[in-house]
Protein backbone atom coordinates (compact mmCIF):
# COMPACT_ATOMS: atom_id res chain seq x y z
CA UNK A 1 0.00 0.00 0.00
CA UNK A 2 1.27 3.47 -0.84
CA UNK A 3 1.47 6.30 1.67
CA UNK A 4 -1.64 7.87 0.12
CA UNK A 5 -3.61 4.66 0.22
CA UNK A 6 -2.76 4.29 3.88
CA UNK A 7 -3.70 7.91 4.50
CA UNK A 8 -7.04 7.32 2.76
CA UNK A 9 -7.60 4.17 4.81
CA UNK A 10 -6.90 6.02 8.08
CA UNK A 11 -9.04 8.96 6.97
CA UNK A 12 -11.99 6.58 6.66
CA UNK A 13 -11.46 5.76 10.31
CA UNK A 14 -11.00 9.39 11.28
CA UNK A 15 -14.32 10.13 9.59
CA UNK A 16 -15.94 7.81 12.12
CA UNK A 17 -14.03 9.53 14.93
CA UNK A 18 -15.30 12.91 13.72
CA UNK A 19 -18.85 11.59 13.42
CA UNK A 20 -18.77 10.42 17.04
CA UNK A 21 -17.26 13.78 18.01
CA UNK A 22 -19.89 15.86 16.19
CA UNK A 23 -22.98 13.90 17.21
CA UNK A 24 -21.81 13.71 20.83
CA UNK A 25 -21.46 17.50 20.97
CA UNK A 26 -24.77 18.08 19.20
CA UNK A 27 -26.60 15.98 21.79
CA UNK A 28 -24.63 16.58 24.99
CA UNK A 29 -24.35 20.38 24.81
CA UNK A 30 -28.13 20.87 25.07
CA UNK A 31 -28.64 17.76 27.25
CA UNK A 32 -26.26 19.17 29.86
CA UNK A 33 -28.63 22.09 30.52
CA UNK A 34 -31.58 20.19 32.05
CA UNK A 35 -29.11 18.11 34.08
CA UNK A 36 -27.53 21.34 35.36
CA UNK A 37 -30.93 22.80 36.25
CA UNK A 38 -31.86 19.57 38.07
CA UNK A 39 -28.70 19.65 40.14
CA UNK A 40 -29.45 23.28 41.07
CA UNK A 41 -33.12 22.52 41.78
CA UNK A 42 -34.63 23.53 45.08
CA UNK A 43 -36.61 20.27 45.02
CA UNK A 44 -34.28 18.12 47.12
CA UNK A 45 -35.04 14.61 45.70
CA UNK A 46 -34.50 15.81 42.13
CA UNK A 47 -31.29 17.53 43.12
CA UNK A 48 -30.01 14.44 44.92
CA UNK A 49 -30.95 12.16 42.03
CA UNK A 50 -29.14 14.28 39.50
CA UNK A 51 -26.08 14.67 41.72
CA UNK A 52 -25.83 10.89 42.22
CA UNK A 53 -26.27 10.33 38.48
CA UNK A 54 -23.54 12.82 37.63
CA UNK A 55 -21.30 11.30 40.30
CA UNK A 56 -21.68 7.82 38.82
CA UNK A 57 -21.18 8.91 35.23
CA UNK A 58 -18.12 10.96 36.10
CA UNK A 59 -16.77 8.34 38.47
CA UNK A 60 -16.83 5.33 36.16
CA UNK A 61 -14.43 4.94 33.21
CA UNK A 62 -16.04 5.88 29.93
CA UNK A 63 -14.84 2.59 28.43
CA UNK A 64 -16.82 0.67 31.03
CA UNK A 65 -19.89 2.78 30.23
CA UNK A 66 -19.55 1.84 26.57
CA UNK A 67 -19.43 -1.84 27.49
CA UNK A 68 -22.45 -1.49 29.74
CA UNK A 69 -24.56 0.28 27.11
CA UNK A 70 -23.48 -2.22 24.47
CA UNK A 71 -23.99 -5.44 26.41
CA UNK A 72 -26.88 -4.67 28.76
CA UNK A 73 -29.74 -5.10 26.22
CA UNK A 74 -28.47 -8.62 25.44
CA UNK A 75 -27.80 -9.59 29.05
CA UNK A 76 -30.94 -8.16 30.61
CA UNK A 77 -33.52 -8.44 27.86
CA UNK A 78 -31.87 -11.21 25.88
CA UNK A 79 -32.05 -8.97 22.83
CA UNK A 80 -28.88 -7.99 20.96
CA UNK A 81 -30.14 -4.49 20.23
CA UNK A 82 -26.96 -2.99 18.82
CA UNK A 83 -25.90 -6.19 17.06
CA UNK A 84 -29.26 -6.33 15.31
CA UNK A 85 -29.09 -2.67 14.31
CA UNK A 86 -25.63 -3.44 12.92
CA UNK A 87 -26.97 -6.30 10.77
CA UNK A 88 -30.10 -4.46 9.69
CA UNK A 89 -28.29 -1.33 8.53
CA UNK A 90 -25.60 -3.40 6.82
CA UNK A 91 -28.16 -5.44 4.89
CA UNK A 92 -30.25 -2.44 4.00
CA UNK A 93 -27.62 0.22 3.27
CA UNK A 94 -24.33 -1.67 3.21
CA UNK A 95 -22.93 0.49 6.04
CA UNK A 96 -20.75 -1.20 8.68
CA UNK A 97 -20.76 -0.71 12.44
CA UNK A 98 -23.98 1.37 12.72
CA UNK A 99 -25.29 -0.41 15.81
CA UNK A 100 -21.99 -0.25 17.60
CA UNK A 101 -21.52 3.40 16.73
CA UNK A 102 -24.99 4.00 18.13
CA UNK A 103 -23.99 2.36 21.42
CA UNK A 104 -20.86 4.50 21.57
CA UNK A 105 -22.88 7.65 20.82
CA UNK A 106 -25.33 6.93 23.62
CA UNK A 107 -22.53 6.36 26.12
CA UNK A 108 -20.62 9.45 24.96
CA UNK A 109 -23.66 11.74 24.89
CA UNK A 110 -24.65 10.84 28.45
CA UNK A 111 -21.09 11.03 29.72
CA UNK A 112 -20.33 14.39 28.16
CA UNK A 113 -23.72 15.83 29.08
CA UNK A 114 -22.82 15.16 32.71
CA UNK A 115 -19.42 16.83 32.40
CA UNK A 116 -20.99 19.82 30.62
CA UNK A 117 -23.75 20.06 33.23
CA UNK A 118 -21.13 20.55 35.92
CA UNK A 119 -19.47 23.27 33.86
CA UNK A 120 -22.82 24.97 33.27
CA UNK A 121 -23.66 24.77 36.95
CA UNK A 122 -20.33 26.27 37.95
CA UNK A 123 -20.81 29.05 35.38
CA UNK A 124 -24.33 29.88 36.46
CA UNK A 125 -23.51 29.79 40.16
CA UNK A 126 -20.50 32.04 39.66
CA UNK A 127 -22.67 34.93 38.48
CA UNK A 128 -22.98 37.63 41.12
CA UNK A 129 -26.41 37.70 42.76
CA UNK A 130 -26.38 41.46 42.21
CA UNK A 131 -26.87 40.91 38.48
CA UNK A 132 -30.18 39.15 39.11
CA UNK A 133 -31.23 41.77 41.64
CA UNK A 134 -30.36 44.64 39.30
CA UNK A 135 -32.57 43.02 36.66
CA UNK A 136 -35.36 42.47 39.16
CA UNK A 137 -35.49 46.04 40.43
CA UNK A 138 -35.62 47.21 36.81
CA UNK A 139 -38.81 45.17 36.39
CA UNK A 140 -37.38 42.40 34.24
CA UNK A 141 -38.84 38.89 34.35
CA UNK A 142 -36.81 35.87 35.43
CA UNK A 143 -36.59 34.67 31.83
CA UNK A 144 -35.47 38.07 30.58
CA UNK A 145 -32.81 38.27 33.25
CA UNK A 146 -31.49 34.84 32.32
CA UNK A 147 -31.48 35.43 28.57
CA UNK A 148 -30.49 39.10 28.40
CA UNK A 149 -28.24 39.54 31.42
CA UNK A 150 -26.85 36.28 32.74
CA UNK A 151 -26.48 34.01 29.71
CA UNK A 152 -23.65 35.78 27.90
CA UNK A 153 -21.73 36.17 31.15
CA UNK A 154 -22.12 32.45 31.77
CA UNK A 155 -20.98 31.65 28.23
CA UNK A 156 -17.91 33.80 28.67
CA UNK A 157 -17.01 31.92 31.84
CA UNK A 158 -17.61 28.44 30.50
CA UNK A 159 -15.75 28.77 27.20
CA UNK A 160 -12.32 27.87 28.65
CA UNK A 161 -13.47 24.73 30.54
CA UNK A 162 -15.71 23.73 27.62
CA UNK A 163 -12.80 23.96 25.22
CA UNK A 164 -10.83 21.58 27.44
CA UNK A 165 -13.64 19.04 27.40
CA UNK A 166 -14.16 19.33 23.65
CA UNK A 167 -10.47 18.73 23.04
CA UNK A 168 -10.59 15.72 25.34
CA UNK A 169 -13.61 14.42 23.41
CA UNK A 170 -11.85 14.00 20.07
CA UNK A 171 -9.15 11.96 21.83
CA UNK A 172 -11.77 9.95 23.74
CA UNK A 173 -13.33 8.77 20.48
CA UNK A 174 -10.48 6.25 20.34
CA UNK A 175 -12.34 4.38 23.10
CA UNK A 176 -14.88 3.24 20.51
CA UNK A 177 -12.16 0.76 19.60
CA UNK A 178 -13.18 -1.32 22.61
CA UNK A 179 -16.33 -2.57 20.89
CA UNK A 180 -14.65 -2.83 17.51
CA UNK A 181 -15.89 0.37 15.92
CA UNK A 182 -13.68 1.21 12.95
CA UNK A 183 -12.39 4.54 14.20
CA UNK A 184 -8.91 5.63 13.20
CA UNK A 185 -6.88 3.61 15.72
CA UNK A 186 -8.82 0.46 14.93
CA UNK A 187 -7.99 1.06 11.26
CA UNK A 188 -4.31 1.42 12.11
CA UNK A 189 -4.46 -1.78 14.16
CA UNK A 190 -5.98 -3.56 11.18
CA UNK A 191 -2.98 -2.49 9.11
CA UNK A 192 -0.67 -3.76 11.81
CA UNK A 193 -2.41 -7.12 11.93
CA UNK A 194 -2.91 -7.71 8.22
CA UNK A 195 0.18 -6.06 6.73
CA UNK A 196 2.63 -5.91 9.62
CA UNK A 197 2.80 -2.11 9.38
CA UNK A 198 3.36 -0.37 12.70
CA UNK A 199 4.09 3.17 11.57
CA UNK A 200 0.46 3.99 10.54
CA UNK A 201 -0.45 3.61 14.23
CA UNK A 202 1.95 6.41 15.11
CA UNK A 203 0.85 8.36 12.05
CA UNK A 204 -2.72 8.58 13.47
CA UNK A 205 -1.37 11.07 16.02
CA UNK A 206 -0.98 13.61 13.22
CA UNK A 207 -4.71 13.51 12.49
CA UNK A 208 -5.57 14.23 16.13
CA UNK A 209 -2.97 16.97 16.34
CA UNK A 210 -4.29 18.78 13.28
CA UNK A 211 -7.86 18.51 14.55
CA UNK A 212 -6.95 19.75 18.03
CA UNK A 213 -4.95 22.59 16.46
CA UNK A 214 -8.03 23.76 14.54
CA UNK A 215 -10.20 23.50 17.66
CA UNK A 216 -7.70 25.52 19.66
CA UNK A 217 -7.75 28.27 17.04
CA UNK A 218 -11.55 28.35 17.00
CA UNK A 219 -11.85 28.54 20.78
CA UNK A 220 -9.14 31.21 20.85
CA UNK A 221 -11.28 33.28 18.47
CA UNK A 222 -14.39 32.81 20.59
CA UNK A 223 -12.54 33.88 23.73
CA UNK A 224 -11.21 36.91 21.90
CA UNK A 225 -14.71 37.83 20.73
CA UNK A 226 -15.94 37.75 24.32
CA UNK A 227 -13.01 39.66 25.76
CA UNK A 228 -14.63 43.06 25.14
CA UNK A 229 -16.24 42.93 28.57
CA UNK A 230 -15.11 41.66 31.93
CA UNK A 231 -17.37 40.50 34.69
Amino acid at each position, binding site marked *: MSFWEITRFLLDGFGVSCLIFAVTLLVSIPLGLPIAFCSMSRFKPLKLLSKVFVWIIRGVPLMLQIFIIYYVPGLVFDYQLFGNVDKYIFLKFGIDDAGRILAVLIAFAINYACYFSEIYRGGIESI*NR*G*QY*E*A*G*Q*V*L*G*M*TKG*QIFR*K*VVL*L*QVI*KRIVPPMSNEVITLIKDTALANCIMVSEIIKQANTLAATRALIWPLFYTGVFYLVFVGVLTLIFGQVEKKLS*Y*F*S*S
Partner: protein
Amino acid sequence: MALLEVRGFKKSFGATKVLKGIDFSLEKGQTLAIIGSSGSGKTTLLRCLNFLETPDEGKMYLDGRLFFDASDRKQTAGASVREKRLHFGLVFQNFNLFPQYSAFENLCLAPKLRARERPDFSSNRRNIYAEIEKKAEDLLKKVGLWDKKDAYPCQLSGGQQQRVAIARALAMSPDVLCFDEPTSALDPELTVEVLNVLRSLSRENMTMIVVTHEMAFAGEAADRVLFMDEGVVAYDGTAAEAFGVSCPCERLKAFIGSIEK
Protein backbone atom coordinates in the same frame (compact mmCIF):
# COMPACT_ATOMS: atom_id res chain seq x y z
CA MET B 1 -50.71 63.58 51.81
CA ALA B 2 -47.54 61.54 51.92
CA LEU B 3 -46.41 59.83 48.72
CA LEU B 4 -45.09 56.84 50.62
CA GLU B 5 -46.12 55.57 53.98
CA VAL B 6 -44.51 52.56 55.63
CA ARG B 7 -46.25 51.03 58.62
CA GLY B 8 -44.87 48.40 60.96
CA PHE B 9 -42.31 46.71 58.72
CA LYS B 10 -40.81 43.68 60.42
CA LYS B 11 -38.31 41.27 58.98
CA SER B 12 -36.36 38.39 60.46
CA PHE B 13 -33.77 36.11 58.96
CA GLY B 14 -34.13 32.90 60.93
CA ALA B 15 -33.80 33.90 64.56
CA THR B 16 -32.23 37.30 63.78
CA LYS B 17 -34.75 40.10 64.04
CA VAL B 18 -33.44 42.69 61.62
CA LEU B 19 -36.39 45.07 61.32
CA LYS B 20 -38.48 45.35 64.46
CA GLY B 21 -41.30 47.59 63.32
CA ILE B 22 -40.33 50.43 61.01
CA ASP B 23 -42.69 53.38 60.47
CA PHE B 24 -42.02 56.41 58.36
CA SER B 25 -43.57 58.48 55.65
CA LEU B 26 -42.17 60.45 52.78
CA GLU B 27 -43.60 63.48 50.98
CA LYS B 28 -43.37 63.75 47.23
CA GLY B 29 -40.16 65.52 46.20
CA GLN B 30 -38.48 65.01 49.54
CA THR B 31 -35.05 63.55 50.13
CA LEU B 32 -34.84 61.25 53.11
CA ALA B 33 -31.42 60.31 54.45
CA ILE B 34 -31.23 57.08 56.42
CA ILE B 35 -28.24 56.83 58.70
CA GLY B 36 -27.21 54.33 61.33
CA SER B 37 -24.41 52.00 62.22
CA SER B 38 -23.59 48.91 60.19
CA GLY B 39 -26.00 46.05 60.85
CA SER B 40 -28.87 48.29 61.95
CA GLY B 41 -31.06 47.08 59.05
CA LYS B 42 -30.77 49.92 56.53
CA THR B 43 -30.05 47.70 53.54
CA THR B 44 -32.79 45.28 54.54
CA LEU B 45 -35.29 48.15 54.68
CA LEU B 46 -34.40 49.31 51.15
CA ARG B 47 -34.55 45.73 49.91
CA CYS B 48 -38.04 45.38 51.38
CA LEU B 49 -39.17 48.56 49.64
CA ASN B 50 -37.91 47.12 46.35
CA PHE B 51 -39.42 43.68 47.00
CA LEU B 52 -36.07 41.95 46.98
CA GLU B 53 -37.06 40.79 50.44
CA THR B 54 -40.62 40.27 51.62
CA PRO B 55 -41.37 41.82 55.00
CA ASP B 56 -42.87 39.40 57.53
CA GLU B 57 -45.30 42.05 58.71
CA GLY B 58 -46.24 45.54 57.69
CA LYS B 59 -48.11 47.65 55.20
CA MET B 60 -47.13 50.16 52.60
CA TYR B 61 -49.27 52.99 51.20
CA LEU B 62 -48.49 54.77 47.98
CA ASP B 63 -50.38 58.00 47.26
CA GLY B 64 -52.75 57.08 50.07
CA ARG B 65 -53.73 53.72 48.55
CA LEU B 66 -52.87 50.48 50.30
CA PHE B 67 -50.09 49.28 48.05
CA PHE B 68 -48.68 46.32 49.90
CA ASP B 69 -49.85 44.25 52.84
CA ALA B 70 -47.60 41.48 54.15
CA SER B 71 -50.56 39.58 55.59
CA ASP B 72 -52.03 39.15 52.09
CA ARG B 73 -50.11 36.27 50.48
CA LYS B 74 -51.40 37.01 46.99
CA GLN B 75 -49.59 40.34 47.03
CA THR B 76 -46.20 38.79 47.46
CA ALA B 77 -46.41 36.58 44.36
CA GLY B 78 -44.58 36.88 41.01
CA ALA B 79 -46.23 39.14 38.45
CA SER B 80 -47.85 41.62 40.83
CA VAL B 81 -44.52 42.10 42.60
CA ARG B 82 -42.91 42.96 39.28
CA GLU B 83 -45.51 45.65 38.68
CA LYS B 84 -45.06 47.04 42.17
CA ARG B 85 -41.31 47.14 41.86
CA LEU B 86 -41.59 49.64 39.04
CA HIS B 87 -42.69 52.32 41.50
CA PHE B 88 -39.29 52.04 43.16
CA GLY B 89 -35.75 52.18 41.91
CA LEU B 90 -32.65 50.97 43.68
CA VAL B 91 -29.06 52.05 43.23
CA PHE B 92 -26.69 49.48 44.69
CA GLN B 93 -23.53 49.97 46.68
CA ASN B 94 -21.52 48.08 44.05
CA PHE B 95 -23.35 49.43 40.98
CA ASN B 96 -24.30 46.06 39.41
CA LEU B 97 -24.14 47.36 35.87
CA PHE B 98 -24.56 44.73 33.16
CA PRO B 99 -20.97 44.16 32.02
CA GLN B 100 -21.70 43.02 28.45
CA TYR B 101 -23.65 46.16 27.58
CA SER B 102 -22.37 49.66 26.91
CA ALA B 103 -23.44 52.49 29.20
CA PHE B 104 -26.16 53.47 26.73
CA GLU B 105 -27.39 49.89 26.34
CA ASN B 106 -27.47 49.51 30.12
CA LEU B 107 -30.01 52.35 30.20
CA CYS B 108 -32.12 51.07 27.30
CA LEU B 109 -32.31 47.35 28.09
CA ALA B 110 -35.01 47.24 30.75
CA PRO B 111 -37.24 49.98 29.24
CA LYS B 112 -37.15 48.23 25.86
CA LEU B 113 -38.05 44.87 27.37
CA ARG B 114 -40.79 46.56 29.32
CA ALA B 115 -42.13 48.24 26.18
CA ARG B 116 -42.86 44.83 24.65
CA GLU B 117 -45.77 44.56 27.04
CA ARG B 118 -47.43 47.67 25.64
CA PRO B 119 -50.48 46.96 23.50
CA ASP B 120 -49.25 49.29 20.76
CA PHE B 121 -45.76 47.77 20.71
CA SER B 122 -45.88 45.91 17.40
CA SER B 123 -47.53 48.75 15.52
CA ASN B 124 -45.50 51.52 17.09
CA ARG B 125 -42.18 49.88 17.90
CA ARG B 126 -39.99 52.41 16.09
CA ASN B 127 -41.40 55.40 17.93
CA ILE B 128 -41.39 53.65 21.27
CA TYR B 129 -37.73 52.70 20.90
CA ALA B 130 -36.82 56.18 19.67
CA GLU B 131 -38.49 57.65 22.74
CA ILE B 132 -36.61 55.29 25.05
CA GLU B 133 -33.31 56.12 23.37
CA LYS B 134 -33.98 59.85 23.58
CA LYS B 135 -34.66 59.52 27.26
CA ALA B 136 -31.48 57.48 27.77
CA GLU B 137 -29.54 60.18 25.96
CA ASP B 138 -31.01 62.91 28.17
CA LEU B 139 -30.22 60.94 31.30
CA LEU B 140 -26.62 60.22 30.30
CA LYS B 141 -26.18 63.90 29.57
CA LYS B 142 -27.66 64.75 32.93
CA VAL B 143 -25.11 62.60 34.77
CA GLY B 144 -22.39 64.02 32.53
CA LEU B 145 -21.51 60.81 30.70
CA TRP B 146 -22.89 61.22 27.20
CA ASP B 147 -19.33 61.07 25.86
CA LYS B 148 -19.00 57.64 27.50
CA LYS B 149 -22.19 56.21 26.04
CA ASP B 150 -20.36 53.46 24.12
CA ALA B 151 -18.01 52.55 26.95
CA TYR B 152 -18.44 49.21 28.70
CA PRO B 153 -18.60 49.20 32.50
CA CYS B 154 -15.07 47.76 32.77
CA GLN B 155 -13.80 50.86 30.93
CA LEU B 156 -15.38 53.27 33.44
CA SER B 157 -14.18 54.41 36.84
CA GLY B 158 -16.22 53.50 39.89
CA GLY B 159 -17.72 56.97 40.05
CA GLN B 160 -18.68 56.84 36.39
CA GLN B 161 -20.20 53.38 36.81
CA GLN B 162 -22.31 54.60 39.70
CA ARG B 163 -23.50 57.59 37.68
CA VAL B 164 -24.53 55.23 34.86
CA ALA B 165 -26.30 53.05 37.43
CA ILE B 166 -28.23 56.09 38.69
CA ALA B 167 -29.21 57.03 35.14
CA ARG B 168 -30.26 53.42 34.51
CA ALA B 169 -32.56 53.49 37.53
CA LEU B 170 -34.01 56.83 36.43
CA ALA B 171 -34.72 55.41 32.96
CA MET B 172 -37.56 53.38 34.47
CA SER B 173 -39.11 56.59 35.92
CA PRO B 174 -39.59 55.30 39.47
CA ASP B 175 -41.72 57.27 41.93
CA VAL B 176 -39.16 56.76 44.68
CA LEU B 177 -35.46 56.20 44.03
CA CYS B 178 -33.51 54.42 46.76
CA PHE B 179 -29.74 54.53 47.16
CA ASP B 180 -27.87 52.02 49.32
CA GLU B 181 -24.59 53.66 50.34
CA PRO B 182 -23.97 54.80 46.76
CA THR B 183 -20.49 56.10 47.47
CA SER B 184 -19.11 53.64 50.00
CA ALA B 185 -17.43 51.45 47.35
CA LEU B 186 -15.70 54.49 45.84
CA ASP B 187 -12.35 56.12 46.43
CA PRO B 188 -12.79 59.43 48.28
CA GLU B 189 -11.91 61.52 45.24
CA LEU B 190 -14.72 59.85 43.24
CA THR B 191 -17.50 60.28 45.79
CA VAL B 192 -17.87 63.97 44.94
CA GLU B 193 -19.06 63.38 41.38
CA VAL B 194 -21.71 60.90 42.56
CA LEU B 195 -22.88 63.11 45.42
CA ASN B 196 -23.18 66.01 42.97
CA VAL B 197 -25.58 63.94 40.87
CA LEU B 198 -27.61 63.18 44.00
CA ARG B 199 -27.64 66.85 44.97
CA SER B 200 -28.96 67.90 41.59
CA LEU B 201 -31.66 65.19 41.69
CA SER B 202 -32.63 66.41 45.13
CA ARG B 203 -32.88 69.99 43.85
CA GLU B 204 -35.08 68.81 40.99
CA ASN B 205 -37.41 67.30 43.57
CA MET B 206 -36.87 63.67 42.81
CA THR B 207 -38.30 61.67 45.70
CA MET B 208 -35.33 59.87 47.18
CA ILE B 209 -34.28 57.66 50.06
CA VAL B 210 -30.54 57.71 50.56
CA VAL B 211 -28.72 55.38 52.94
CA THR B 212 -25.40 57.10 53.52
CA HIS B 213 -22.47 57.58 55.82
CA GLU B 214 -21.69 60.98 54.26
CA MET B 215 -22.93 63.19 57.09
CA ALA B 216 -22.06 66.47 55.37
CA PHE B 217 -24.06 65.41 52.35
CA ALA B 218 -27.02 64.27 54.48
CA GLY B 219 -26.99 67.52 56.42
CA GLU B 220 -27.06 69.69 53.38
CA ALA B 221 -29.08 67.73 50.77
CA ALA B 222 -31.63 65.83 52.83
CA ASP B 223 -34.96 67.27 53.92
CA ARG B 224 -35.31 64.66 56.59
CA VAL B 225 -33.14 62.24 58.49
CA LEU B 226 -34.07 58.81 59.76
CA PHE B 227 -31.68 57.30 62.28
CA MET B 228 -31.91 53.53 62.52
CA ASP B 229 -30.61 51.66 65.52
CA GLU B 230 -30.88 47.89 65.91
CA GLY B 231 -33.91 47.54 63.67
CA VAL B 232 -35.98 50.45 64.94
CA VAL B 233 -36.29 54.09 63.95
CA ALA B 234 -34.51 55.84 66.80
CA TYR B 235 -34.92 59.32 65.34
CA ASP B 236 -37.03 60.84 62.58
CA GLY B 237 -36.79 64.58 62.04
CA THR B 238 -35.48 67.42 59.94
CA ALA B 239 -31.86 67.43 58.85
CA ALA B 240 -31.37 70.81 60.52
CA GLU B 241 -32.45 69.44 63.88
CA ALA B 242 -30.62 66.11 63.53
CA PHE B 243 -27.28 67.77 62.88
CA GLY B 244 -27.88 70.82 65.08
CA VAL B 245 -26.92 71.38 68.70
CA SER B 246 -30.52 70.89 69.79
CA CYS B 247 -30.70 67.27 68.59
CA PRO B 248 -32.91 65.50 71.15
CA CYS B 249 -31.59 62.00 70.48
CA GLU B 250 -28.46 61.18 72.48
CA ARG B 251 -27.65 58.06 70.49
CA LEU B 252 -27.87 59.98 67.23
CA LYS B 253 -25.56 62.66 68.62
CA ALA B 254 -23.10 59.97 69.66
CA PHE B 255 -23.38 58.30 66.26
CA ILE B 256 -22.76 61.52 64.34
CA GLY B 257 -19.88 62.31 66.65
CA SER B 258 -18.30 58.88 66.06
CA ILE B 259 -18.52 59.27 62.26
CA GLU B 260 -17.14 62.78 62.13
CA LYS B 261 -14.07 61.87 64.11
